[in-house]
């Protein structure tokens, strides 16, 4: 890593002795394989090291930042599902016509837009000009630490505490980053839904149903029910993809989450943070993939 964590720690004005002392304290004077060996040994015993940039153990930091990202990602996913799936169905049903084309553009928009740009514009328009949403951060300053932390997710915690004022404030703050983050998953889900629905609508049973005189609506619902398992699978996968957008979205909205933590760790050359976060991301993705696999296997009657 070309970023020197020692300089990041002691600053520009450190003299040789201070630098050397910090260097040794970080264990960087030992050869690389030895350092890696220490790291592995530490991991196995549950010690993921201390973050240079916060002075806290990485595990503690991750425990602190992770719920924020989970809250954001979950809300994003819900938004993505609520927006993307109906759009996908509508597109499949009216394939080739104007609605389909519009839905396509709408969906592709999510794949094509720079999130950080959208985030900034959202702040300017909806916070500065209209005052509809809250500013940066998860809650307004008056509501920090008001509700007891149970899950670390402010929406959940305030609901559990029945403190609706805080809930509303938290909602105002999460709405913009969640929707912006949702653009990608909306795109993905609408495309996949469309594709699944088209598959279904081409099946014989659909033609049969139509002949039998069922309304288009009922036919569509019928087909929709059949893609349920596939949908669930891709929803799980979409969850993982949200991490990508989270990195920059969190920066723009000052959201103290995992993405921001990883980015600042990367830019500061904080090896402990980078390695641990990388591991976590890999594990999460793996877990999500396995979950999707299992859902498919358990729920899809065809695979039994």
């Amino acid at each position: 890593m070309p970023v020197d964590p020692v300089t990041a720690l002691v600053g520009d004005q450190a003299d040789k002795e201070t630098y050397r002392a910090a260097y040794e304290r970080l264990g960087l004077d030992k050869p690389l394989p030895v350092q890696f060996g220490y790291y592995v040994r530490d991991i196995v015993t549950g010690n993921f090291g201390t973050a240079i940039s916060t002075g806290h153990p990485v595990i503690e930091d991750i425990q602190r930042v992770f719920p924020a990202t989970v809250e954001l990602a979950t809300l994003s996913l819900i938004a993505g599902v609520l927006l993307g799936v109906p759009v996908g169905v509508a597109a499949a049903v009216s394939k080739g016509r104007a609605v389909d084309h519009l839905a396509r553009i709408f969906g592709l928009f999510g794949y094509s837009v720079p999130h950080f740009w959208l985030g900034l514009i959202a702040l300017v328009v909806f916070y500065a000009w209209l005052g509809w949403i809250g500013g940066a951060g998860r809650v307004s300053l008056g509501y920090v630490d008001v509700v007891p932390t149970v899950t670390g997710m402010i929406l959940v915690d305030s609901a559990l505490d029945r403190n609706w004022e805080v809930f509303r404030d938290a909602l105002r703050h999460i709405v913009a980053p969640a929707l912006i983050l949702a653009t990608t998953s909306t795109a993905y889900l609408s495309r996949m839904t469309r594709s699944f629905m088209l598959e279904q609508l081409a099946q014989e049973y659909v033609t049969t149903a139509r002949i039998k005189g069922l309304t288009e609506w009922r036919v569509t619902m019928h087909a929709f029910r059949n893609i349920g398992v596939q949908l669930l699978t891709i929803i799980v996968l979409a969850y993982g993809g949200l991490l990508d957008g989270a990195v920059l979205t969190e920066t723009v909205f000052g959201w103290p989450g995992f993405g921001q933590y990883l980015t600042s760790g990367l830019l500061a050359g904080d090896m402990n943070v980078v390695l641990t976060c990388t591991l976590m991301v890999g594990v999460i993705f793996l877990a999500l993939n396995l979950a999707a696999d299992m859902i498919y296997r358990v729920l899809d009657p065809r695979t039994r």
Partner: protein
Amino acid sequence: MRRATRFSSFFLAGLLGAATAAMAKTPADTFVVASNLSQIITLDPAAINEGAANGFVRQACDALIALDPNDASKVVPGVAESWTVSPDGAKYTLKIRKGLKFPSGNPVTADDIVWAIRRNLQLNLANAQRLREWDITKDNVDTVVKAEDAMTLAIMPTRPWAPGLFLFAFTDLRVAPVLDRKEVMAHEANGDLGNKWLATHSACLGPFRITTWRPQDILMLDRNDGYWRRKVAMKRIVVRHVPEAGAQRLMLEQGDVDFAADIDPADFKALEKSPNVRLETSPTLLISYMMFNMNDPRFRNPKLFEAFRYLIDYQGLEATLVKGYSVTRQSPVPVGVFGALPKSYMPYKLDIEKARKLLAEAGYPNGFTAEFSILNNFPYPDIAQHIQQNAEKVGVKLNIVQMIGAQLYQKARARKFELYLAGYGFNYPDANNIFLRHAYNPDNTEQSKDTISIAWRAGWDPGREFNDAIRAAQVERDQNKRRAIYEDLQRKHNANSPIIYLFQRLSVNALGKDVRVFRQTLVGDDYSSIEKR
């Protein structure tokens, strides 16, 4: 379906709530700050190396000697109520103010101070070197700093420093914080002298104490009643982590915060027009500079350096790009510092033809190509592009490479750069600090111990006379003579060095309209003086 209606009804409720809520106001006895807290690593005075952390810990931690709030180049009685200096400068006797108590209730004694200084050296973290600068080391600290009795401190420096100079050392909390020894040691773990605990707590004498710190999230300070210096109006200070300068500005305009610490100059114009905000400016000890690496055989001729001094439109940049943010300063010693040449000292201006002539005299009639390493945050990319464009007019092709501080300083430390543009923050308002850091270079080889010196990093040997003059000024007792030495050195610096000074930074405080008083000094802001409507 039901989920959708629930979601949308909450959404609408949120919007309605927002629309009917009165414009957010901060409580009258709480000062709310929006600042980028990502650089703060620790709160331990022995380890703080970065400006933002220092700025906040200063509100919780007094240093032994105070600076005049109206003129930071003067020392005034503080925790050290009075002092005497022996005629030969060999002994300083300081009397600690009586009746001072830490937030824990423990009384402040000379022992605490001595212990804090010793601790600084024993821990040997980032700030130990600030003592070593004054030749106070782990080995001699016990003889140099002593508690004569409970309320008297004696310091016997190893060199006869000019008294006006030496006292400055103890105005910095990173050197001599007034730390609560009993409290800190009560939280000691594994002989770390409380380092781990102090990383996230404060136990100092000060107007405030730190009650909460969540990294990259929030920092909160509560008032300590009975502060010795004045009656403190603010009961609590809340610092919110807002990494985006634009978001800080919006929060300020909306009244959600009282003070935006990192306001971007791009927002000055709009903020000046806003009725909810006022901007206050004051000079700082931060400067911007660029330099050549003389270790590169191409960059040895002083005429080359002089040529570049004429490639920059200082006034033009000051009036546009860095307007309200920096002022032209063509000397390493910022205005307001003891020994500084007057503000009007401005020997260079944009002159492409002169630059071209000098460049030819230096042996580069056709210019050259070089890599220009810079910091990637404002204003450096813009200043660099300006220099790049002017350089091209005389045939010099500069390739800009921007990077974060840690990477850039690494290059400087290793002397592996060609051209370099960055900022620098000095520590106390005496030219000695400036020249030690930016000129003093007795050993220009790789084995040098003084690699902290910018002159060393630029590979510049100022010459024996120069180095000696710096040392002589340190012990010169006549203030006027000292000043004369420094003024002469500044002129010599510009005539010979590969280091080109560009600007002195201003501190721009963007304050909400409810803030009546907010005092800034050359070395930082003073939150104990804040008054709100």
